[in-house]
């Protein structure tokens, strides 16, 4: 059977794949399945497609490939799976095999793989998926009068979107300075954490980036790394040890964990009142690390802030942007994001707050595209605003 | 079709099957079986047989099917729509002899009965093991279970307990060609193939003759709370009904009686006196008769409070709870005397049975009242409010040609308006012969499907011909 040769990673997971009893419980909370009614887009559909590829009763088509790249890896399907299968691993294995297939062996022109190859190419060259130059990574520092020491106890690992879109990076840095935390950054040496390469199946590049970033961090001597992007948090904290085959000798935390620490040690004092009714959106990657109440504690600590909890049976939980879907099918992501925004509007809140640049971007474009009367605010912006005297 | 005079050969054949003293062609018998409750129907059958079991019925049907002779099954004969009349002559099968209660299975809460068992008799036996067959028809002292299955009757407690169809689990049926078939198993749920059991419930003897019925029973209620609710208007009382039903206290009975009917009953009850004189309604624009039942007095008390609150919130001026069993009897006696007093006044009565979703019950009642005014005929209205099932009771004089014409126009108008609103011509009594003309307007295309199924089961159209299908 040449299937083993063609799909090496998948073949190792054949038993797991055949355990799927097709009960469709995974469709209950899958944001992709709720948006695209075709069965092929649902987690169950994907499992059937993979089984078809391995057992030979299915053939590879563009729709199969596209379906496998339409997944935000939010993890809800794994919670619902009756057979207890970790679908994420399987879908990732399928992307690895798809990435590594010789393009000439695919008898048709695949737009999806075309997009994947272009992006992976960009990351390999410019160490970021956004098409910016590596040296532009420190543009955010302009006008911030922050001197960053060579070595420090803590490294603020920015991540591509905060760095190149600047606002999140500046706000986070300002906050750290206001709290006179002893921190530095990798400056223009910082490279993409490799999350997108990893999710697109380009494991080699992800491993290189991991190796590089870890050595750079160790050079600063820092024992703690803070990041404002849950995607980077997940890569550094969960994937790097697996990719490098060894535990990291530094701790990796999210900005909200840090701020919560400061709050608990009474070193975070909000000055000004912000009269605002908001709904907080949990980024999927923070859910994976069970970081639920730190962001909420911070928001509740801001005077005047009215945090309205979203109903637990809200239709969707994920913003729709993760797992590379924003790059593969932006329009799908914004449609999914629209549901979350509508839930917020139903609650009658003025703004939706999140602490993930990817969610932030997805929600912003959705709000614009469907001109929904709701503000999208980054948690760190609220923190900074309330820290300063008004 | 049935010849004028059924020839001797066939009579002898039938007598061989059931035995001489269970077959009659005596004119007296033919006359006794020439009608059901419908006043204008007098059609003598060619003969009447009283079989003992399914085997005999099977042989009768084999013969009838070969000779294309109509066969009409009949239980208590209390259908009032010509359902068990031999419209085209033929053989009437009197099922009263098959009156065995084969089994009351307390553990399974089930009973297996022959079609001729009287409803009251089943409940008398079921009561010994604290169980009951809930559908309560006023004619329970006479109505047979075979008849109730044939017309899917429900009655005064359908608000909580639904209709006969909810209690039929399995049937033994003899088909037109004589095959004896069993449908359904004595189990509580099944998704195994097509549900032929419910196809037979309500088929009024046109698909086959039911010879054994497996029925579900329920724990018998022990405690009751009955009351009159007086409202300023019918609409308010109907709204209160909707809220009460939604509150979840699940009342067993929820009857509406419109004001003209209350007045007539009170007046006529006095006039005819005797036992009837005890029948008296409190006379309110919107009158509701509630009844809660259950096995736990604490629950009844709790439900009473909820019911009182909801009723008062929806404009109920006064609630008169029955203080004891006797008062409760009196309230139900008044409700059951509505038909009795009206019939005393004028010998023949037309009973309607239209049904709409409960929220549209006020509209249905208004349709009936307006039609009465338009055609100058007194229309009395009572309703099983929680189901949206309203009965118009129209006493009339059978010999008054003009009144008969107006009456037909009136009934057509009420029924067609009901159908236009998406309702049905019959909530519980059935179609029989009298309401055949409404079948096509109500069912449209699916009438053809019903006809196709009838032709499948009874190609020679020998089973109760002249009912359900036809003009």
């Amino acid at each position, binding site marked *: 059977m040449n299937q083993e040769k063609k799909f090496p990673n998948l073949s190792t997971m054949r038993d797991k794949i055949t355990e799927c009893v097709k009960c469709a419980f995974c469709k209950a909370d899958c944001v992709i399945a709720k948006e695209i009614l075709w069965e092929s887009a649902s987690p169950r559909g994907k499992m059937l497609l993979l089984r078809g590829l391995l057992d030979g009763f299915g053939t590879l088509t563009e729709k199969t490939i596209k379906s496998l790249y339409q997944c935000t890896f939010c993890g809800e399907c794994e919670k619902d799976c009756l057979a207890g299968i970790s679908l994420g691993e399987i879908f990732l294995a399928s992307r690895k095999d798809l990435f590594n297939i010789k393009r000439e062996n695919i008898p048709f022109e695949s737009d999806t793989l075309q997009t994947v190859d272009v992006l992976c190419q960009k990351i390999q060259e410019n160490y970021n998926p956004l098409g910016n130059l590596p040296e532009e990574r420190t543009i955010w520092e302009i006008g911030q009068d922050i001197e960053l020491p060579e070595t420090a106890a803590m490294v603020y690992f920015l991540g591509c979107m905060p760095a190149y879109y600047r606002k999140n990076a500046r706000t986070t840095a300002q906050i750290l300075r206001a709290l006179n935390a002893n921190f530095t950054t990798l400056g223009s040496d910082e490279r993409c954490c490799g999350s997108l390469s990893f999710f697109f199946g380009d494991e080699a590049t992800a491993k290189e980036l991991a190796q590089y970033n870890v050595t750079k961090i160790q050079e600063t001597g820092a024992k703690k790394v803070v990041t404002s992007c849950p995607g980077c948090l997940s890569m550094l904290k969960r994937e790097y040890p697996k990719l490098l085959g060894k535990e990291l000798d530094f701790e990796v935390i999210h900005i909200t964990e840090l701020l919560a620490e400061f709050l608990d040690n009474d070193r975070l004092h909000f000055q000004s009142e912000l009269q605002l009714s908001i709904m907080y959106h949990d980024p999927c990657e923070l859910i994976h690390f069970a970081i639920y109440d730190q962001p909420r504690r911070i928001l509740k600590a801001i005077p005047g802030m009215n945090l309205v909890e979203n109903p637990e049976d809200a239709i969707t939980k994920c913003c729709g942007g993760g797992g590379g879907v924003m790059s593969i099918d932006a329009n799908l992501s914004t449609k999914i994001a629209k549901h979350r925004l509508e839930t917020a509007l139903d609650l009658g809140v003025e703004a939706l707050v999140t602490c993930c640049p990817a969610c932030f971007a997805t929600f912003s474009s959705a709000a614009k595209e469907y001109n929904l009367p709701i503000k999208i605010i980054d948690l760190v912006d609220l923190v900074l605003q309330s820290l300063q005297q008004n | 079709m049935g010849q004028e005079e059924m020839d001797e050969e066939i009579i002898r054949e039938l007598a061989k099957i059931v035995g001489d003293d269970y077959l*009659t062609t*005596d*004119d*007296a*018998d033919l*006359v*006794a*079986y*020439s*009608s*059901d*409750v419908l*006043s204008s129907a007098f059609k003598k059958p060619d003969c*009447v047989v*009283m079989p003992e079991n399914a085997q005999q019925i099977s042989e009768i049907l084999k013969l009838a099917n070969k000779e294309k002779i109509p066969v009409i099954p009949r239980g*208590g*004969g*209390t259908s*009032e729509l010509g359902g068990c009349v031999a419209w085209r002559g033929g053989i009437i099968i*009197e099922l*009263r*002899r098959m*009156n065995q209660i084969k089994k009351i299975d307390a553990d399974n809460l089930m009973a297996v009965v022959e079609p*001729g068992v009287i409803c*009251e008799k089943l409940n*008398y036996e079921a009561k010994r093991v604290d169980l009951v067959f809930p559908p309560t028809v006023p*004619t329970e*002292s*006479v109505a047979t279970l075979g008849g109730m299955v044939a017309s899917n009757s429900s009655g005064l407690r359908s608000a909580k307990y639904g209709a006969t169809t909810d209690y039929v689990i399995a049937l033994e049926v003899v088909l037109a060609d004589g095959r004896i078939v069993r449908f359904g198993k004595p189990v509580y749920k099944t998704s195994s193939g097509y549900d032929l059991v419910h196809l037979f419930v309500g088929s009024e003897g046109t698909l086959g003759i039911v010879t054994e019925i497996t029925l579900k029973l329920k724990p018998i209620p022990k405690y009751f709370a009955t009351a009159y609710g007086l409202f300023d208007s019918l609409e308010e009382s109907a709204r209160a009904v909707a809220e009460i039903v939604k509150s979840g206290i699940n009342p067993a009975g929820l009857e509406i009686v419109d004001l003209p009917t209350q007045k007539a009953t009170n007046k006529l009850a006095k006039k*005819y006196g*005797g*036992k*009837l004189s005890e029948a008296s309604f409190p006379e309110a624009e919107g009158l509701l008769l509630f009844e809660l039942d259950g096995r736990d007095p604490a629950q009844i008390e709790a439900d009473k409070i909820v019911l009182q609150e909801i009723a008062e919130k929806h404009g109920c001026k006064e609630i008169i709870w029955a203080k004891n069993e006797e008062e409760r009897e009196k309230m139900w006696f008044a409700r059951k005397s509505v*038909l*009795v007093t009206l*019939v*005393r006044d004028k*010998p*023949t*009565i037309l009973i309607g049975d239209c049904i709409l979703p409960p929220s549209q019950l006020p509209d249905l009642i208004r349709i009936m009242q307006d039609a009465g005014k338009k055609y100058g005929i007194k229309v009395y209205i009572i309703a099983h409010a929680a189901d949206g099932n309203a009965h118009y009771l129209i006493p009339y004089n059978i010999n008054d040609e003009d009144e008969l014409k107006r009456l037909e126009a009136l009934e057509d108008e009420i029924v067609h308006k009901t159908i236009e609103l998406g309702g049905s011509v019959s909530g519980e009594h059935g179609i029989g012969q009298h309401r055949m003309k409404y079948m096509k307007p109500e069912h449209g295309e699916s009438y053809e499907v019903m006809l196709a199924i009838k032709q499948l089961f009874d190609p020679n159209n020998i089973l109760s011909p002249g009912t359900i299908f036809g003009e």
Partner: protein
Amino acid sequence: MSEISFKNLIQAKESLDTCFKCSFCKGNCPVSEQIFWESFSPRGKMLILRSLLRDQGILTEKVRDSLYTCTMCSNCDNTCIAGIKVTDVLAAGRRDLYELGKAPESVNSLIRTIKDSGNVFDLSKEDLDILGFNPDKEFPKSADLLFFKGCYANYHSIPHKSTMRSFNILQKLKVDFAILGDEECCGSPAYLLGDMDTTRRFCEYNVSKIEETGACRVVTACPGCYRALKQIYPKLVGKLNFEVLHITELLAEYIDAGRLVFKKNGIDKLHVLYHDPCELGRHCGIYEAPRKIIESIPGVHLEEFEKNRDEAKCCGGGGGLTISNPNLASQIAQLRLNEAIERSIQAVVTACPACQLNFTISKDKYNMKVKILDISQLVGDSIGLH
């Protein structure tokens, strides 16, 4: 119009047209419970008589059998929602059949017997002496109160004993009463079977005999006689100038007046079911008097049949059924007694010789373990008359 004229039925034409065959009358009819032919149910009978009148239905033998298979218990009158007196219509039907000579042979022969011997048992006064039934001698010929014995009391051993017990009770209570030495049948059987002339003859005879004694109150222990005197006689000869009482009404009166007092009498925990005789209860409305008597006897617990008072089921012995279909009569009685056996109640008490006789015959035939008592036996035992 038919060449046969049904002059009695014509008067009942209105009732026949009113009936809309709702079948409620079948609900409690003792005959319908046993015979399933529709033609034997009250509704069937109405339809048959209606067709006889309207479109010359053929007067077949089945019409005769159906009409005469009925206890005239009036359960159908009680349940008819159209308020029709069904038994009157059936009685009219029987009158027409009898007058047209179409009545069953058994009916004709019984009526001949009554006409010739003045009683249903074809016994003469002399036979009474031989049977020792003739107490005429000890009783005065005139008094305020007259005890009308009736055929059963006169000529049948079982009811005779109960009537004698009533005599002793009255004597014990020092009630003086007269009896008709030459009493003839009250006419009830003839009325029920359709011979109005004979009924009228006995009515006129008995009324004149009673008036001779100057009695202003007449008491009887037989509901058949009670109904004949109370309801049928006035229709034939106008208002009577004497009051008619059943023995239970009289005894109840004496209890209220404190004249009849029961003392502890050794009867303990005797559970009894009281059976309402149709002609006493449903026809004449006497329900409470017998119950008051039973309840005031110490040691006796009165229980009620499932169907009692105006809904009471018939014992099967009335309306001439014991001669037209004796088998059916005892089957009906058996069904009634079954309830006593199921509820393991020792005795059924009634206040009618016909019921007592019919129950006793049925009890023996189906050897049922239940005692059949007449109310006067019970009263007698409990005031020390053995």
